[in-house]
């Protein structure tokens, strides 16, 4: 036992020395990443961390940002707000200068409260709730916000005349889902379709959707809007098939992952599902083809939009660092002040949009794309 204690203390001291050394170098930009790498939302977090790592490796191979190498440190938060804040503190101890995260909305809101206090530059690749970036002017995002997704979905359905009777099922216990639904509903009043059934579920009752589906069916809905994540969507599709109900399904970015995220899911059930997503892996431009090829080589799967958001996120940071002319020996707060001013001046061509620009409140400006699932793959829509 004594020996063990001795060994443990030696290891501890060694670890402390290593971390002190790492803290003091000031020769790299230290970028922290926070997202769910395990747990129910792991497909998003893993996508983000892998996508960001590819971008970091590319930039470092090409000589870094203004000659400075990037260092990326991903931390797991299990899609839990408290763990996300813990991860943020771990990263601060590590010497983080800029943060890519958090990946999911609720944890991101919690982390942003801390980051705003510290004046730490925060760029969330995919935290789409409005409040993810409202606590301070230090926060920006790569993806669309929830309201813009809901509004854009309603406009898309209306303008393309997809249906006259629309049903909606949403997760009332989730800020992401209910946020999107609220703006969808508001915008639907201006659109030539009618919401005939609106049903909710909560995190505690998300296995049985028969009631919600039955109500949509009874109301004669031709299209069902599903503003929630692919996990539950897979159950909805399975249960609807068992009930012989086959409307048009319309999802948002949380639906991304339906083809790969649920192992063993019969993807033919998702045939014809439409979703709004800024990224489609089958796009034929060089940037996408290069990214998808690298991702498949490294991680053996097709990247989802979260990976693309994160890849863009790292390049956005690069552009902002170059514009602001910051150096790695500056403290995080000084970097944040310079970079947040630079964010409104840059324009980035990325995987999730070309000519992306940002307003001072942190919202991106880019146009949404819709894809439809055909033969087990995304296909771009008009």
């Amino acid at each position: 036992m004594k020996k063990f204690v001795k060994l443990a203390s030696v290891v501890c001291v060694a670890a402390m020395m290593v971390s002190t050394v790492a803290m003091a170098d000031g020769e790299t930009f230290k970028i922290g990443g926070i997202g769910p790498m395990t747990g129910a939302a792991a497909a998003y977090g893993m996508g983000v961390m892998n996508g960001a790592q590819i971008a970091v490796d590319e930039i470092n191979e090409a000589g870094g940002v203004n000659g400075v190498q990037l260092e990326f440190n991903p931390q797991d938060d299990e899609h839990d707000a408290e763990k996300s804040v813990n991860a943020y503190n771990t990263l601060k101890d590590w010497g983080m200068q800029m943060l890519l995260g958090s990946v999911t909305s609720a944890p991101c809101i919690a982390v942003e409260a801390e980051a705003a206090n510290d004046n730490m530059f925060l760029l969330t690749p995919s935290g789409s709730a409005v409040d993810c970036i409202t606590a301070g002017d230090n926060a920006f995002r790569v993806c669309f916000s929830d309201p813009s997704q809901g509004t854009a979905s309603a406009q898309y359905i209306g303008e393309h005349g997809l249906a006259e009777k629309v049903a909606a099922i949403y997760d009332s216990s989730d800020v992401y889902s209910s946020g999107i639904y609220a703006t969808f509903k508001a915008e639907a009043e201006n659109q030539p379709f009618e919401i005939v059934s609106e049903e909710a579920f909560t995190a505690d009752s998300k296995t049985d959707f028969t009631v919600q589906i039955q109500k949509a069916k009874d109301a004669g809905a031709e299209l069902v809007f599903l503003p929630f994540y692919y996990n539950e969507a897979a159950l909805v599709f399975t249960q609807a098939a068992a009930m012989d109900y086959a409307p048009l399904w319309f999802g948002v970015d949380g639906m991304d992952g339906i083809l790969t995220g649920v192992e063993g899911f019969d993807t033919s059930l998702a045939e014809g599902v439409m979703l709004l997503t800024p990224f489609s892996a089958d796009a034929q431009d060089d940037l996408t083809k290069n990214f998808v090829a690298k991702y498949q080589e490294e991680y053996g799967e097709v990247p989802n939009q979260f990976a693309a958001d994160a890849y863009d996120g790292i390049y956005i940071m690069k552009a902002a660092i170059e514009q602001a002319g910051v150096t790695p020996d500056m403290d995080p707060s000084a970097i944040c002040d310079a970079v947040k001013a630079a964010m409104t001046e840059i324009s980035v061509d990325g995987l999730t949009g070309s000519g992306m620009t940002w307003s001072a409140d942190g919202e991106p400006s880019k146009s949404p794309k819709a894809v439809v699932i055909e033969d087990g793959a995304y296909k771009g829509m008009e």
Partner: protein
Amino acid sequence: MSLLSYLINGISLGSVYAIIALGYTMVYGIARMLNFAHGDVIMVGGYVALTVVLSYSTNPLVAVLVAIVVCTVLGIVIERVAYRPLRGAASPLAVLITAIGVSYLLQNVVLLIFGPNPKSFQSVVPFPDLKFAGGTLNISAETIVTIASCIVIMIVLTTFINKTKAGQAMLAVSEDKGAAQLMGINVNGTIALTFAIGSGLAAIAGVLLCSSYPSLSPYTGSMPGIKAFVAAVFGGIGSIPGAMIGGIVLGVIEIMSKAYISSQLADAIVFAVLIVVLLVKPTGLLGKKIQEKV
């Protein structure tokens, strides 16, 4: 017609709760402890069945049997390693906390082995769905199998407890552990047997749960586990028919309040009914009043 299909869905959901609740209620009735890891044993059962179907045999019956064997062994091991050493502990809280620990341990071990991505479970029920009234009423084969197994399990369990020696020993241990021991009953063995049966049932529940709601993740068992616990309390914890009735009533209330009152408030209504039942009948629907002798 929708009323009928809501009712059938409610009974189906309730039957799953009922089978899970049986495990809670047996263990509580006999060992006087809440086995919070029960929901996670269900999840393990689901994963075992899935693995068997995917890699060894496509025969669903084989998968179910292997799952039952693995879960039974798991139940005995958990009882032996984690609960038995604490049975004499001064505070009954110790074993409760251990149970929560075992629950997290199981979740995280499965997370480590199978990864976080949810897996879609292929139904083990090989029959087609029943359709009535020109397709407007659709009863899935899983629903029928779930309800049928629920009834069979209840009959077998009740017979087992009332007619066999081991069953009588369980009753004796539940009444008075000390006296049972004096009568020559192997208390540890009886409690281990209870865990074995409860965990075997959990495997069946896991397979049925995942056949009806085909998404399996390391956290699949926790929410149905809690609902089933509520069902067990609702029906009168310790009572086997009570767990059955509690489970089915809970499932029907949940689906009906979703359908006719509010899909957002369904859970609140379920728990409000629980509170009302407990206020009127503190021991649950079929619970026995236990006289404390001073």
